[in-house]
């Protein structure tokens, strides 16, 4: 069963076609990678899914429900959560408050008790190693922790689909290793969740993703398992160029 289905999606910025006739199918419960060079249209794709931009053409279906034309908050309430490439935390609020904002709508939706919500925040803090900084302002956290907090905040909305926009940006190789095991742990604890992540670093994609799509200039140039994609001649051409440098 496809959780996310994108059909023939296009988006124009003036005369520039940022995303063009894109087709992607993401099966439920998998970790899916979207790979591509800068400017390939990956973040635009996320902005289209989450309703920050409205597509010029095409269809986005979540569990069969169309997301096109819906506003960001409505899409979030349908079960899509995301992080941002350039962090967008509530800097002047504490770590706990940041996570709690993610829960506000969720509580109304399912009538969860306050006690359970607090327990939920506690388990998120523990999972992401933020418990010692719980009452600190988000803006005062070190960069790596801010990245983790953004993922924790997104998870607080109990999403079906989690979109991670370059979660490893600005991290050193050791931190990337930590992130890989963290995302695996998230997947283990939230077994029903589907994760789509945008990434440059092959190491992370290799370690995590079941399946990947490679984008270049707004178009899909390859689909398949990570191994298949890595050995696809078109991908190699797009990444490394075709003529030999003498």
């Amino acid at each position, binding site marked *: 069963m496809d959780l996310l289905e994108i059909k023939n999606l296009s988006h124009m910025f003036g005369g520039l076609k940022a995303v063009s006739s894109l087709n992607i199918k993401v099966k439920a419960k998998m970790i899916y990678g979207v790979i591509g060079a800068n400017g390939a249209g990956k973040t635009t794709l996320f902005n289209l899914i989450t309703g920050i931009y409205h597509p010029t053409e095409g269809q986005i279906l979540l569990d069969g429900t169309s997301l096109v034309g819906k506003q*960001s908050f409505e899409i979030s*309430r349908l079960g899509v*959560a995301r992080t941002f490439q350039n962090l967008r935390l*509530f*800097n002047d609020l504490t770590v706990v*408050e940041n996570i709690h904002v993610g829960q506000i*709508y969720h509580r109304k939706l399912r009538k969860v008790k306050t006690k359970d919500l607090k327990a939920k925040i506690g388990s998120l803090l523990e999972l992401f190693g933020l418990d010692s900084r719980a009452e600190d302002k988000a803006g005062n956290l070190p960069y790596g922790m801010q990245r983790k907090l953004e993922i924790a905040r997104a998870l607080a909305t109990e999403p079906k689909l989690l979109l991670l926009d370059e979660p490893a940006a600005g991290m050193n190789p050791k931190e990337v290793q930590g992130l890989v095991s963290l995302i695996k742990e998230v997947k283990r604890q939230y077994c029903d969740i589907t994760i789509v992540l945008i990434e440059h670093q092959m190491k992370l994609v290799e370690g995590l993703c079941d399946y990947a799509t490679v984008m270049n200039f707004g178009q899909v140039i390859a689909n398949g398992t990570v191994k298949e994609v890595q050995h696809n001649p078109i991908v190699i051409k797009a990444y490394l160029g075709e003529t030999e440098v003498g």
Partner: protein
Amino acid sequence: MPISKSFSPVKVIVLLLTMIVLFTLPFLVSSFILRIATGIMMWIGLALSWNMLGGYMGYISFGHGASFGVGAYIAGMLMTQLHLPFFIALIIAGILTYIFAALVGYPTLRLSGSYFAIGTWAFAEMMRQLVLVLSVTGGAEGLRLPPMLNDNFFYFVMLALALIVFLVAYLFFENSDFGLKVKAVREEETAARTLGLNTTWIKNQVFSISSMFAGIIGGAFAYWITFIHPDSVLGPLIADQMVIMVLLGGIGTLFGPILGAIVLYVGNQYMLVMWGQSSAYLIILGFSICLVILFLPEGLLSLPRIIKRKGSFSRLIQQKNQVSK
């Protein structure tokens, strides 16, 4: 997460004493002082209402004076032309200002930052010109309300209004999920939307609620002063003073606007008494706001904290020197 603040015995005693002083004040002081106290209460209410929008939500409005003036004119017209009793006129003024603000907020809240400030300021100026040319409002002649010469009455009205605004700020903006949503809009609107918050609705609510309080206070002011004129209730200085009071005391805090309102209003009245109607007030006002923004960006409320930090810093240096000796 709403942080439950525990009430220590000291806090309760301070609160009780403040209440006792506030409620017995008319029987303790002269009518001159009482009129100043009434003015302080009015400005506390206004500064707190502006702080809901500018402080908690981060939308700096220079048009909040328009809500004050619109409320004053609606209450005034209801009392003079329909001969409604004061409290009913006040309630209707509040409801109509709320609706008025919701309509104004719809286009202006799409702007942000300085564009929002300019947009609201332009709207307020438009209202002043409109009231100046309409005949139902009395135009440039102003509007004369039935006089009611009871200082105690107005003191208690303004006190009650200030307390209500304070309670709303405390309950809904400081300690609730609603307040957290509002602060999330201030910190990162896009992120708030992707977490399921309908930011358009939240922004419009905050704008309308804060304007409603300004409108109700405006209505009470009209009856207190008995004569209103476009320049006296719709002039730019009304909104400017609210902004400056909040900045002076501490923006986005609960007690900052109160402190700012007291300091600025008392200073203003003092100058009025000493020098008469003088534009020196405006010069000092401008100069003091420059100083506050440069040296105390978090307002007077942060002063004790800064002094304490400086103190501990110099102590630290002393200790270090002793160790190195």
